[in-house]
């Protein structure tokens, strides 16, 4: 069981990083981005294509893919913040559902629907704890999750940019009237989360089932993790991702429970929502 849980930590780190991105998006630009993982998928697929078919050196292909993930995200953000500036989170997020569909279909058209020949950037064990091997991927994903969450927290609480961002998310119109460059800042948030999502997917994809749909659907466990922090708290989002990954890893050890394992993110989502929303009775403030 413990072995399984530790093996699940790599996936946990992945969920945590994506959950941090989802939380930042939800807090700062009022979007639950269903296309978060799909953006990363698309960027990393382009990276693979550039290196395999385009003959570019691998490092360059990866960098270009990651940059594309960021640009793509900014583009989506531009549509959302231009066309739906005043809309509620629900409508803004619904657009990203259409984007999710769009990106998966586009990747089928461009790359076919077979998993891609990803080159592992990181391979092999990092160290061993009590007879259990911890892979380099695990170390890097978990570290990334923690570092990104900390960095985001520092930026948001200690820097002028972070304070502007928070003002922007609480009162977008007021913030804009105060002279905060709303569009540029929210584009920056979209871009940053797009870059991070692509980086983490490039790192983890070789060790995952890496067809376009599976990678894009990583948004489901990530959302489960983000829900632990109510789409607001970064630390709980990280914890949620790690616990979810370890839980799935542990359950994977028991063959009879494999169906249960599939439903773990879903059950976590339902459970957390019912618990966290138990006091939220009415929709509008008054």
């Amino acid at each position: 069981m413990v072995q399984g849980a530790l093996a699940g930590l790599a996936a946990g780190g992945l969920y945590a990083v994506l959950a941090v991105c989802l939380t930042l998006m939800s807090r700062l630009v009022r979007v639950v981005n269903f296309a978060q993982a799909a953006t990363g998928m698309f960027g990393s697929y382009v990276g693979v294509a550039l290196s395999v078919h385009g003959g570019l050196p691998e490092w360059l292909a990866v960098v270009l893919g990651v940059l594309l993930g960021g640009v793509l995200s900014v583009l989506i953000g531009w549509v959302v913040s231009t066309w739906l500036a005043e809309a509620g989170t629900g409508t803004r997020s619904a657009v990203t559902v259409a984007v999710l569909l769009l990106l998966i279909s586009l990747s089928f058209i461009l790359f076919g629907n077979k998993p891609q020949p990803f080159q592992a950037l990181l391979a092999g064990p990092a160290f061993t704890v009590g007879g259990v091997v911890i892979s380099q991927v695990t170390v890097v994903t978990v570290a990334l999750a923690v570092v990104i969450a900390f960095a985001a927290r520092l930026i948001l609480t200690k820097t002028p940019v972070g304070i502007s961002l928070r003002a922007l998310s609480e009162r977008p119109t007021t913030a804009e009237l105060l002279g905060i460059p709303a569009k540029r800042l929210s584009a920056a948030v979209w871009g940053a989360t797009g870059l991070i999502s692509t980086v983490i997917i490039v790192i983890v994809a070789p060790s995952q089932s890496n067809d376009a749909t599976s990678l894009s659907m990583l948004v489901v466990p990530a959302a489960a993790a983000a829900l632990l922090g109510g789409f607001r708290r970064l630390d709980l989002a990280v914890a949620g991702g790690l616990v979810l990954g370890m839980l799935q890893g542990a359950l994977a050890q028991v063959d009879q429970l494999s169906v249960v394992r599939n439903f773990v993110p879903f059950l976590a989502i339902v459970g957390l929502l019912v618990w966290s929303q138990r006091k939220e009775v009415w929709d509008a403030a008054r």
Partner: protein
Amino acid sequence: MQLADRGAVSRFGTPLVVAVVAVLVGIGLTVGLNGYFAYLGVSVVVAAIALLGLGVVTGSAGMISLCQLTFGAIGAWVVSALNVAHAPGGFLFWLLLGGLAAGVVGVLIGLPALRLRGINLAVVTLGLAAAADVTLVEIQFPGTTEGVSVDRPSLVADDNAYFLLCVIVLIVCALLVHFLRRGPWGSSWAAVAFSERGTAAAGASVRTAKLSAFAVSATLGGISGGLLTAQVGFAFPTSFAPLQSLALYVLAIMSGAHLIDMAVFGAVLWVAVPELLKRWGVPQDWGYVIFGLLGIQALAGRGNLGTAIRELWRRRSRASAGVQITALDEEPPRLPPGEPVLVVRGLSVTFGQVKALSGVDLAVPKGGVLGVIGPNGAGKSTLVDAISGFLPQAQGTVELADRPLTGDPTQRARSGLRRTFQQDRVPSGLTIEAYVRFVARRRPPAAEVAAALEFFGCPPAATPLDRVDVGARRLVEVVGHLMAKPQVLLLDEPAAGLPHEEHVAFGERLRQVPARFGVSVLIIEHDLDLVRSVCDTLTVLDFGEVLASGPQAEVLADPAVLKAYLGETEML
């Protein structure tokens, strides 16, 4: 009588005529189509039923559902399993059972959804779709691995006959949706999509509204999955993949599937676009790209295909209807105020450290109008919220006709206490008539509704609410609640949104409400002219406490009241 008959004919007759015509078209197509097109036709019908379901949950009730084909998979599963087990009853019966099973799962998924709105529900349903997909690939449908196929009933064995059967199932489903939407459930779906508070204040259960929408949608999903199984003979997980559910959701948005004809139109696109792309040698995935782009456009409020097409052939005037209300010539009759009918004692509400109300006592006399006034932030709206049950943390007692008034807003509304809102809570998807019927929780005679609407200067009953301006909508809200014949109606600034000249005319009508409708009124109002002309008694709130209470003239002469209002221009 004749009018009522004509109403019933158009209410039941028109849809039935359309249904009969649709069956005839189906028969015509069956004769005219060759096998392959009949097969494609079945695919259209299957998609149309699934889209009808999405039209209910997403289009009418405003909830994002991303697992419609997971419900389809449940229907397919039940049909396959019953087929493998040689269960009695035959295909159509299994189809029905499959739909019902999906409906039950829909309710189970919907249960947590009761407290969830908007985006959370989207996360839940996408989670279910992803989990179900992985699981189905692992365990496969019953009979698939053994090669036990689901055979069509012998009468409809060939593609053309099966197509006709599917068309008939679709028509039955469409009629069901049409009549449900016309009934109280349908109105509650439209209401809950717009405002949960407004729904509860009309005495309708928010829970029932959400669960019924989810259940109906899931049932339709299940039926479409069952039909698909007999079309192919086997159910495969790929037919129910999350990607397809997402595409169907986007298609429902872009085609406007809350309209039945547009659901069918969307289904035609669903099948025709990939088919055409195939013929032109273009990868079929471009179909989803097209749907995705049009979906983004529709979601971004740039208009969807369905309404655009409707506008083309039904050029309706888009002029908005407003209030036509003028002063009365004679002094309206008044009832002598009687014993208190609504009694509030020691009502207190705190939000964290803030005391919004502390120890408020007041009484609404039977047949009278009590005005509650006070400066901004005095706690007036909090008072209405607390009395009508929207603040369960409120302390103190509320009695209506000597019986304690407790429970949630729905229960309180049903026990005879109604309220309106300061903000617009009138759903725009209905006509005035349907909305009034929904709020009244009964079917008042058309003449009664027309008279009440005319009395308040509202547009005629057949006007769609999306063409009614804000001031008129607020009066329509008042009319609806009066038609419910409550004992007491709480009005939260009902005249806001009306031009000032019309306040007095409105006040004169309000003055007659107790005599004319048998309803006692508590009104919160800023316009002191209106208050003077309407209220027998006044209660003044200041910082959450009662500053003065009693007959209008005494209260308005009270030095403490004058002091609290000093600087408020209305008093000068």
